[in-house]
């Protein structure tokens, strides 16, 4: 029983991070139908920038919480600019190109960002300095830390903010209109270019925050960390029905929980035949099973054919 609670806690923490990253994928996909493969790399850059800021300010005598907040703010800002630049330089010229062309561009950008990060931060693992005094709370035999609590809390706050933005503000309305039909939206006076750029900027900001969470949770960062994280988050987005905001959140949480439970129980279930290093395949097996029965994800609309 305590294993169950423990894995659920870990799963929710991980799921909150996946959900934030998945939102970045799903917003861009919902509006221009592009899998932004470089999004995982944006998250990684966010982590790295936060790390640099925190390390360089750690000895300055500032209160740790302020340092942490500064790290978060700077990395969010850098990633917003990066997301905007990505769209402007790499994707906007290809908006009317064949479908696979921007996908290859996205892959190219992902390789570029990864190697730029390696040139700047080196190829070794870097460890995050612990900024908060970690406190451990007990819950029915399982334990959780204040880091986990703040991750889940911050993620929930971000998601509520995003839902408010999309459903209650003018730019949100423009986004929903563009997602439905870009041509008609532009006839109604929506500046399509601005809306698409906004989707990239907001997605990247969420990604940067998720990156900081991963960094402070695992206390470690690496220039290749964005790849698998991005892959899982994209899986989460597809699981929930890509293009659907609530779907991405639910998909992320679900994926985190499934992964944590899978890692906790696979050894017992298979008589130690399969160990916890099979953790990574759960995401994909669940995805395949879900898509077999619901080809457009759990919450995706059953759309007709759209080429």
């Amino acid at each position, binding site marked *: 029983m305590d294993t169950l609670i423990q894995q659920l806690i870990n799963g929710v923490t991980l799921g909150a991070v996946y959900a934030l990253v998945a939102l970045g994928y799903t917003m861009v*996909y919902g509006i221009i*139908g592009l*899998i932004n493969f470089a999004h995982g790399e944006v998250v990684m850059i966010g982590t790295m920038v936060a790390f640099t800021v925190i390390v360089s300010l750690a000895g300055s005598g500032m209160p740790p919480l302020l340092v942490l907040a500064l790290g978060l703010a700077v990395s969010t800002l850098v990633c917003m600019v990066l997301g905007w630049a990505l769209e402007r330089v*790499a994707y906007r*010229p*290809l908006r*009317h*190109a*064949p*479908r*696979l*062309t*921007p*996908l*290859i*561009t996205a*892959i*190219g*950008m*992902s*390789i*570029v960002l*990864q*190697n*730029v990060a*390696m*040139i700047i931060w080196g*190829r070794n693992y870097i460890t995050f300095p612990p900024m908060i005094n970690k406190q451990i709370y007990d819950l029915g035999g399982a334990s959780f830390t204040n880091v986990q609590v703040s991750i889940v809390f911050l993620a929930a706050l971000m998601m509520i903010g995003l839902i408010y933005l999309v459903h209650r503000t003018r730019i949100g309305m423009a986004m929903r209109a563009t997602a439905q039909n870009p041509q008609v939206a532009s006839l109604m006076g929506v500046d399509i270019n601005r809306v698409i750029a906004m989707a990239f900027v907001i997605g990247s900001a969420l990604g940067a925050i998720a990156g900081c969470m991963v960094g402070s949770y695992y206390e470690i960062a690496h220039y290749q960390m964005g790849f698998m994280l991005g*892959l899982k988050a*994209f*899986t989460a987005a*597809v699981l929930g029905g*890509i293009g659907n905001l609530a779907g991405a959140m639910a998909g992320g949480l679900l994926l985190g929980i499934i992964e944590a439970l899978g890692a906790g129980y696979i050894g017992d279930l298979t008589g*130690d*035949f*399969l*160990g916890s*290093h*099979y953790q*990574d*395949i759960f*995401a*994909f*097996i669940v*995805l*395949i099973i879900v*898509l*077999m029965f619901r*080809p*457009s*994800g759990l919450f995706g609309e059953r759309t007709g*054919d759209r*080429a």
Partner: protein
Amino acid sequence: MSTAIKSLARHQHWLALLVVGVVLLLVPFVAALGGQAWVRIANFAILYVFLALGLNIVVGYAGLLDLGYVAFYAVGAYTYALLASPHFAIHLPFWVILPLGAGLACVFGVLLGAPTLKLRGDYLAIVTLGFGEIIRIFMNNLNAPVNITNGAQGITLIDPIRIGGFSLSQSSTFLGVTLSGPQKYYFLLVGLAILVIVINIRLQDSRIGRAWQAIREDEVAAKACGINTRNIKLLAFAMGASFGGIAGGVFSAMQGFVSPESFSLMESITILAMVVLGGMGHIPGVILGAVLLTGLPEALRYGIEPLQKMVFGRLLIDPESLRMLVFGLALVLVMRFRPAGLWPSPQRRRELSESTD
């Protein structure tokens, strides 16, 4: 007059083939002047031509976006490695294993294809990607409790392709010409590549090929025209997978070593990039893409270090990451300025110029 031009055109056709043939024949000897490493690079270029043309069937002809193609390559490679190495002390001859590997990869292709028939576009892409990762993770971890794949260490001492006492890995002399091991593999690979090119050309205008193209353009309309879309799509998966399986077997034999590291997602992506960068669905384009994307990183490997020393006087940036950086930038730039690929098929180019009007 017109007949003379026609016959000239026909002769030109043969002349071009002759030139290509002579060049192909000379490549291993010219490359050997720079060392056997260059022959190996040429071999890999041709192996990737083979793989890219296999993927071209799935992506280019049938329009099914497959991001896990490397899984079939891995199945073929491991089939060969397990059945022709001291790992299980089994040493079957290659003419048994290569078809077996192709068949097994084909079965995996159908296994992947069957549950994903209903999916389209990007949903299919992520499922194939996941499938590729599942295969790789299994290869990485199937060393306990029963050691099947030897985990991350991989399998070593794999038998080369040999017929009787004639082994492709040692050098031998024919008619006064000495051929090294890699050079012999080169000729085997060229033979295989020609085979896959012929199959691709024949498929293109066959009933099946046209059915694939119909599905690619509009699946509902294709179904309404009486095409059995289920079987035809499965056939595309199965055929693409078989080619992957054969390529994997040859890779195993040529390297003498396989490990899960060779079958990462990046590998799938690189093969897809070859197809798209060259010109999807167009055979010469795909070949060009494969040769360029194999050759470019190697050329950069040998070019970047001296260039940096020349410009800055010392090694300023780690050459390995700079190499990948240039590779990524090249992908972005080519797609920016030639969105349909470097050498798209004439039909596709027409479609594109029409759609922008």
